[in-house]
Structures are given as C-alpha cells and as structure tokens.
C-alpha cells in the first residue's frame, strides 16, 4: 500500500526515529505487528504474527535475531509524521544488534511484560539506551493477560527510571489496545533528528545484509546532507567508491525512492557482493564533495565463545566451508578458521557471541545447508603468559601449552540476575560455586531483586543459565557483559579412551572443577559408548596425572535371538541397519565411538534415553 511516507526527503521535524527494546519475549515483535497494521502499511489479509521476523529460524524458534527497520506514516493532530521504527532482538547474544539500532534512533520504547516485570535484559538494554542519551518511553505490555500486574510493575519501572508509575503507558500488543496512543506519544516525546541539510552527505551504516538476488543490501541512517541514486558514494574507512544501483526505504517491503535526507533511514544497493565491503559502522558519503570526517563507528562484535564444528561425514568438509562463507556474509560476528582434530578429522574453530548464537548457527548450517555436524564443548578465550614472558591466545584446548606457564588470564563478565527474592539464597550458592563475586543487590520491588556479580565467562557458558533456570523454577533472568579479565588457576583436563587422548573432549577448567569435569565426562562416556569386544578404560587426566577413571566392560552378547520364522528379509534388513550404524562410528584407536556419543557427551544436558547400564 502506498502512503505519504513513501515519499522521502521529509523535513526532519516531521521524523521520529525509535526502536523497541525489551527482555526476550516481552512482545516487541508483536507490538511492531500492531504498528504495521494501525499505520496501514500492512493490510489485515497480509498480516502474520511477528511479521518482521523474516528468517525461517526466527519464525521456528519464535525469537528475533536480526533487528529490522520499517518506515511508518502517522498523523497526529492533522500533522503528517514519518516514523522509523526498529524492532530489536531480546536475547543477550544479540545485544550488539540492539546497540546498533540504538545508534540510529533518538528514542526507545522500553517494553516490559506486565506479567513478568523488569528482567535482566530489560535493564541491560535500558542502560545501553541511556548511555546514548535516548529518550525512553516506558510501556507495559500484555495487559490483557489475567496474570498481568501493571500496578506492581509500573512501580518497578518508576523506581528504576524515576518518574511516576502513572507515566508508564499500558498496551496489549496482542489486542492492539493502547497502541495508537503509544504512537501519539512517540511523536510527542521523541525528539526529531538533527542534522545539517546542506552539509556534505554523511550516513551511518547500521546493518549490511547479503541477499541472494540483490547482493549486499546496506541499511543507513542519514545524519547530514542527502544520498541520491544519481550519485556515486564513498565508504569513508576504505575510500572505496561504489555506483548506487538503488536507494530506498523499507515499508515493510523494500521500496525504491528518490533518495534519503537528514534523519531518514533506508537502504542502498551498490552491487557489491561481500558485506565486508559495506561494513557496519562505516560512514557513507558522496563521491564528489564528500565529507572529510567520519561519524564515530561501532565497536566490532567480538566472539566470546569458541567451539569446533566438524562434519559427521568427513567428505562434507568442503560443503561446510562453503556454508560458513555464506553465513558469514550476513553475520559479521561469526568467525572461523580451519582446524584438525585427531578424533573428529577436519573442521573449523568458530567464534560466536554466545551459546544461542552457536546453537542457531549450527542449526542453520544443518538445515539450510543439509549438513550433519558435531560441535565440541564451547570455551572462551584465554591469555596465557609463558615463563619466558611470551604470550599466547588460546581459543582451543588443543593449543594449551604444556608446562612453562607463568600466568593464565580468563575473561570475566559483569552479570545481572533478576529473580523473586525467595531465591536469593539459592542463587548466591550457585554463583559462589561458579566463582562469582557479589557486587551488589537491589530490590526492584518488595519481592524481586537484582543481583550483580562478577563471574568468569567460562563458567557462564558452561551450564550456568540452565542451572539458574532450574533452581529458580524458570523465574530468574540473566544478562552479562564482558568486563576485562582476571588471572586464574586453570588447567586442561584430557579425556583418554584406552590411553588415547580424545582432543574433542579436552576442556579448560578451574583447578577446583577439574575433578568434577573429569568424573562427569568419564561417567557420561561410559554410558554413551557402547560396549566393544574388549574392555575400554576411560580416564580423565591433568597432564600425566589421572584424576578419574571408568571402565566400559567388554561386550559379550551381540546376536539377535528371536524366532522370526521365514521373515529372512527382516533379518537381513536389521543386519544392514547395524552395518550402516557401524559406518557412522568414529574410530578412536580401536574404539568405535558413535557420533551420537560425541554429540551427547558434548552437550550440556545430561545424556538421556540410554537403556544400558553396567
């Protein structure tokens, strides 16, 4: 549908740029849906839930991974306005998406689920917005829910933000109640963008996406001057000059336009094929009479978690490489380099923003590219100072230096946990076990607290979140951000099968946790690895010191003993299936280890579904 907002070069005073930020699942994308509908850019018949969650994986998991911007028309008191709204993800792994979205806005809707209250990412995102001096509009969502307690949570919000509980707007993104009033408030409260219209063009790249059909699509917000399709542009970091094939807006599908003026948000297509040539954080200017000073850029997202990805079938290695190349086009945060594992063969050591990012990437590789993958236990980045003062960055336990280590540094995080106060004791106990140091504690309301800890990242990515959730019956939320490093007493624990170390199972852990890791892995593997025709010892070791031991007893029975009468076909098929199963085994020395054993042993959940006990 076409509206007045389809015409660009709107006067800045008529423009409002804002994003919706919240904790995961508090209803950002659903609120965005209502805005698309109420402003008329999406017709009822074209509507689908979480319209802006365009990726398959987003739709399947019901979460937003990529921020999405849309240009909306809104008329208040007879004046036509253009709103650039950005829906952001809520999960901690995608915080950098939020931070980029915030940089393109003057205001933010802080959305809070009226049945849950403020959660850890609510605060994290709020503080990011405040850091950038954005105007915050606090809004309670889901007031249609019977469990909603808007009074209580409005008070929580007022307590955090200052202001009065009555100032907190109340909406239901599901029913649409309160949404048009909210849009009115956006126009009233969010300051219009400021920029110099006749200055040389400067536009900030806040996203850059590879599209199979159109090549790289670059999302920009114009700060000064204007960008028009007739002019060539220059990337200020590299000086590279590109032809402009198209300039447009998203509303909610891409629409080509005459160009973009001060404060406007839209996209460019230049024909480049690699997102690295159109880097997020770079400044775009016009080739002729361009700007000389770039806008301040973004900090590139740094991988926090590393894991090895290996094809189950070694011959898929080239396909895995190609798939990673493709994924990286759209995911600047994903890094990878080839590595070899004695147990798993050829693969890649990949860097991720967090465990969800890892999981999603793996999932996409498997489904979109038809690969079958094994991922090794995730680890963080260690800085190892050697006795000779040499230094080593370790992203893979296999690269851990033997001996001659003077000091080891591990990344630490500041984390925020929000939970009902009845769980304080439990949480403190858990955090202590994870080497956490309590930094402070605040009551958000009578019965809800915020706990602040400093904790090694390595502990968080292990199984911290799962333990936290299960010990608080799902009520606790967690947010964390990097916060430097600390010297720690870390060791590498190796797992040996029949005396052979299996590199894929090695882990770097705090020395006090080594025994726990060793016994847990040894027991797990004993459960997961089927009996062989000989006895197989499983050992956990630090260097040459054995810290745990288990034994897989020799198999004595491997024969089908049932009367199948004349159904020989069934017998043959069973055997063929057994043989197929053997092919999927990885050999570690003489020991046949099923793929599933690697997968299950390396997953953070307890192995389940085993019917074998010794």
């Amino acid at each position, binding site marked *: 549908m076409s509206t007045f907002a389809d015409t660009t070069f709107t006067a800045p005073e008529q423009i409002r740029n804002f994003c919706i930020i919240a904790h995961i699942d508090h209803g950002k994308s659903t609120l965005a849906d209502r805005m698309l509908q109420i402003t008329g850019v999406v017709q009822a018949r074209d509507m689908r839930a979480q319209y802006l969650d365009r990726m398959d994986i987003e739709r399947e998991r019901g979460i937003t991974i990529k921020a999405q911007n849309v240009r909306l028309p809104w008329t208040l008191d007879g004046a036509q306005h253009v709103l650039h709204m950005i829906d952001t993800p809520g999960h901690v792994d995608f915080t950098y998406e939020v931070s980029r979205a915030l940089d393109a806005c003057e205001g933010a809707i802080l959305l809070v689920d009226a049945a849950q209250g403020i959660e850890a990412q609510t605060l994290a995102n709020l503080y990011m917005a405040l850091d950038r001096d954005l105007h915050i509009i606090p809004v309670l969502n889901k007031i249609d829910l019977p469990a909603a307690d808007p009074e209580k949570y409005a008070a929580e919000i007022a307590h955090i933000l200052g202001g009065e509980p009555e100032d907190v707007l109340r909406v239901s993104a599901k029913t649409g109640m309160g949404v048009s009033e909210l849009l009115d408030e956006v126009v009233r409260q969010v300051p219009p963008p400021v920029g110099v219209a006749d200055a040389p063009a400067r536009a900030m790249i806040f996203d850059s996406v590879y599209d199979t059909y159109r090549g790289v699509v670059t999302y920009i917000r114009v700060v000064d001057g204007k960008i028009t399709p007739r002019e060539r542009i220059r990337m200020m970091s590299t000086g590279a000059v590109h032809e402009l094939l198209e300039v447009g807006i998203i509303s909610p599908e891409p629409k080509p336009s005459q160009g973009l003026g001060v404060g406007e948000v839209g996209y460019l297509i230049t024909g480049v094929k690699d997102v690295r040539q159109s880097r997020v954080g770079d400044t775009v200017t016009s080739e002729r009479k361009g700007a000389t000073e770039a806008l301040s850029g973004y900090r590139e997202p740094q991988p926090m978690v590393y894991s090895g990805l290996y094809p189950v079938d070694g011959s898929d290695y080239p396909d895995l490489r190609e798939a990673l190349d493709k994924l990286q086009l759209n995911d600047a945060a994903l890094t990878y380099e080839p590595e070899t594992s004695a147990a798993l063969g050829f693969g890649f050591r990949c860097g991720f923003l967090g465990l969800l990012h890892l999981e999603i990437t793996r999932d996409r590789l498997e489904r979109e590219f038809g690969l079958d993958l094994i991922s090794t236990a995730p680890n963080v980045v260690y800085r190892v100072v050697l006795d000779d003062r040499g230094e080593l960055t370790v992203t893979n336990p296999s690269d851990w230096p033997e001996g001659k280590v003077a000091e080891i540094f591990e990344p630490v995080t500041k984390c925020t946990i929000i939970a009902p106060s009845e769980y304080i004791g439990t949480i403190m106990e858990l955090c202590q076990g994870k080497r956490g140091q309590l930094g402070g504690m605040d009551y958000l309301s009578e019965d809800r607290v915020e706990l602040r800890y400093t904790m090694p990242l390595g502990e968080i990515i292990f199984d911290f979140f799962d333990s936290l959730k299960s010990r608080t019956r799902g009520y606790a939320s967690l947010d964390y951000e990097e916060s430097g490093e600390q010297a720690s007493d870390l060791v590498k624990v190796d797992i040996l099968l029949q005396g052979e170390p299996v590199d894929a199972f090695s882990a770097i852990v705090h020395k006090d946790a080594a025994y726990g890791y060793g016994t847990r892995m040894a027991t797990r593997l004993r459960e997961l690895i089927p009996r062989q025709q000989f006895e197989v010892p499983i050992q956990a070791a630090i260097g040459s010191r054995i810290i745990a031991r288990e034994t897989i007893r020799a198999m004595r029975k491997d024969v*089908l003993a049932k009367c199948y009468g004349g159904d020989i076909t069934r017998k043959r098929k069973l055997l063929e299936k057994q043989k197929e199963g053997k092919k999927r085994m990885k050999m570690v020395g003489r020991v046949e280890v099923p793929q599933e054993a690697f997968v299950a042993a390396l997953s953070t959940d307890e192995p389940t579904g085993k019917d074998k006990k010794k």
Partner: protein
Amino acid sequence: MPGSALSGLGQRPFGVYVHVPFCATRCGYCDFNTYTPGELGSSASPASWLDGLRAELDLAAAVLGSAPPADTVFVGGGTPSLLGADGLTSVLDAVRGAFGLAPGAEVTTESNPESTSPEFFAGIRAAGYTRVSLGMQSAAPHVLAVLDRVHTPGRPGAAAREARTAGFEHVNLDLIYGTPGETDDDLRASLAAVLEAGVDHVSAYSLIVEDGTALARRVRRGELPMTDDLVLADRYEIIDATLRAHGMHWYEVSNWASTVDARCRHNLGYWLGGDWWGAGPGAHSHVGGVRWWNVKHPAAYAKALAEGRSPAAARELLSPEDHALERVLLEIRLVDGLPVSALDPSALPEARAAVADGLLDAGALDAGRCVLTDRGRLLADAVVRRLT
C-alpha cells in the same frame, strides 16, 4: 514368478508354512502378525481364513506347476491350537490336497499350552502331525505375569507329557530368557521343568523389546528395567551348559536338540536356503531366490482370495549380494557353520582375525568352514558384520 526361480524346485527340500493369525489375548512382548477376537470384530474369522487358505494353497499348486510333495509342514502363529484338532486336521488336509506329503514328512504345529488337552493331541496325531512346539516361555509365575502369559507354570510341562503320551516323539518347548524380574535361579527352575518334561527339542530366545508393543511402552515409561546384555550372556551360558549336561546340544544359536533327528527340519530349510510356500496372512515365502510376503490383515487376505486375487503384498528378487549376505547371516548360526567358499574372498583375513579373537573355531577354519565358538555364538551378529 520368474521361470528361473522354479527351475530347481524339487531338488531342494520343499516346505509349507501355514500362518494362523489368531490369539485369545495379546502378549505384551509379541509383535507377530496375530489378532484377538476383539481386534478382528466381524472383519475376519477362522472360517473365512480357512476358505482363504484353501484358495491360496490351490493357487500355489497352480503357480508352482508340478509342485513337489511337501517334505515339511509347519503350522505357526498366532495360536494354531485355537483351531482345535478338527481345525488343524482341515488345515493339513488342505496342504495334502494341494501338494501331497513326502514320505516321512515332518509336520509341526505350534500350540499354546492352555489350549491343548490329551484329546487335542490325540486328534492331531491321528490327523498326521508328527511334531508339537509349545510356547512355555518360563516356569516362574512372576515372569509369566510380566509376559502376560495366561497359562499356569505347570501347564507347559504337563502338555508336553500329554503330547508324548499321544504318540508325539518330537516335542519342543520355547523359552524366553532375560525378562525383567527374571533371576538366574528362575531360569534354572524353568530349565529343570523343561528337562523333567522329557522333550527332545528346546528353543530359547532372549526377550526382544519390539517397537510398538505394550512391553516397549512399559520399558520407555520406566516401569520395567531392560535386562543388561551381560546378564543375558550369563543366562545364555546357563541354558547351554544345563542342556548340554543333559544331552541336548545346540544346532542353531537359539535351538537345542537331543539327536540329529530331533532337529526341526522345517526351520533348517529356512536357514539353509530351502524353498517354501508360506500361506496365510503375512506369511513369507521363498522359492529359488524370490522372496514374497502376503498382506497382513486377515480381512484383506480373505478378501483378496475371495476375489480370486493373489494375497501377496510385495516381493523381492534377491541380488547375488543379498543372497551372499543372507547365506552368511543364516548359516553361520548353525552348528556346522558356513563353508569358507561362501565368503567373499576379501573376507578371509577377517575370518582369520575372528579366529584370533576367539569367535571362530580354528580347526574348523583350517578344514574350510566358519564355525562359531561358544563365545562366538553370543557375538554372532558381530561376526557376520565382519565377514560381510
């Protein structure tokens, strides 16, 4: 039926299998093609089944042309004894009518202990049956309960004695071992009951938890523990040692007999690549490298035959590779093993390695045969995988 399949017919032993798809109740572990009256409703009955069977046997005789007389007949189930002596007499008459019986033919029927009696055995003996196979499973009441068996612990032994009194020289008892809750001593007591019954044949199967059975659901829900493989291996060794001590020797991994004559010739036909026609719902047949099987449901079976159509559901022509694999898979399980010539030459080093690992008998291999050792019997599938 391709002509090539028929070419050797009559040179190999020829058997007839008849499948009786009826049971009074369904045992929780059983995934055989069998139906209770409640499951069938009015869609099929023993009477419609018998009509179908007669039609199929006539069809068989026509398809096979000058069919040889049957060397072996095996009526299995399901519960053939539910048909009663008269029903089983009609079945055997139908087989005789279609193919005739070779002199000295072995004619077996399976029977459930609870649906047999001295009169029943006398009746089928008179009809021409020569062998009876009884589903005993266990002598322990709590094991029978887990297996949903409805007979009393003493009934199978008594039935076996009744059969012998009625003139049956060859009587088999089926055992299941490794049922959750069974102890070594329970198994020893079952073996004592078998020996006391004086039968000349025993089949012992480790309980298999088949997908889709009530047993599988109970195991999945954690109501019943699965028996560990090491325990199953111990139990097998108890069975083998006990039977051997009483003069019964293994001739197939799960089968023991007191003399060569007591071995089940019909089953040997399956294992040695013989020809047989399997009649009845879901029955499998093999003639000269072609395998086929019938539709499973008795109603579909009866309908096909009533309309003059073949009840076959599907068939497969064995490729030379399938055939070679099947030979290894089946013959290795026999006491005489498999001739080395039946192996792919590339498997010879593996055969030697299996000797070194104590799975194949060294002397037998030197003499040109792959024969499982005692340990090898329990690891037969692993041996087959290595040799194929």
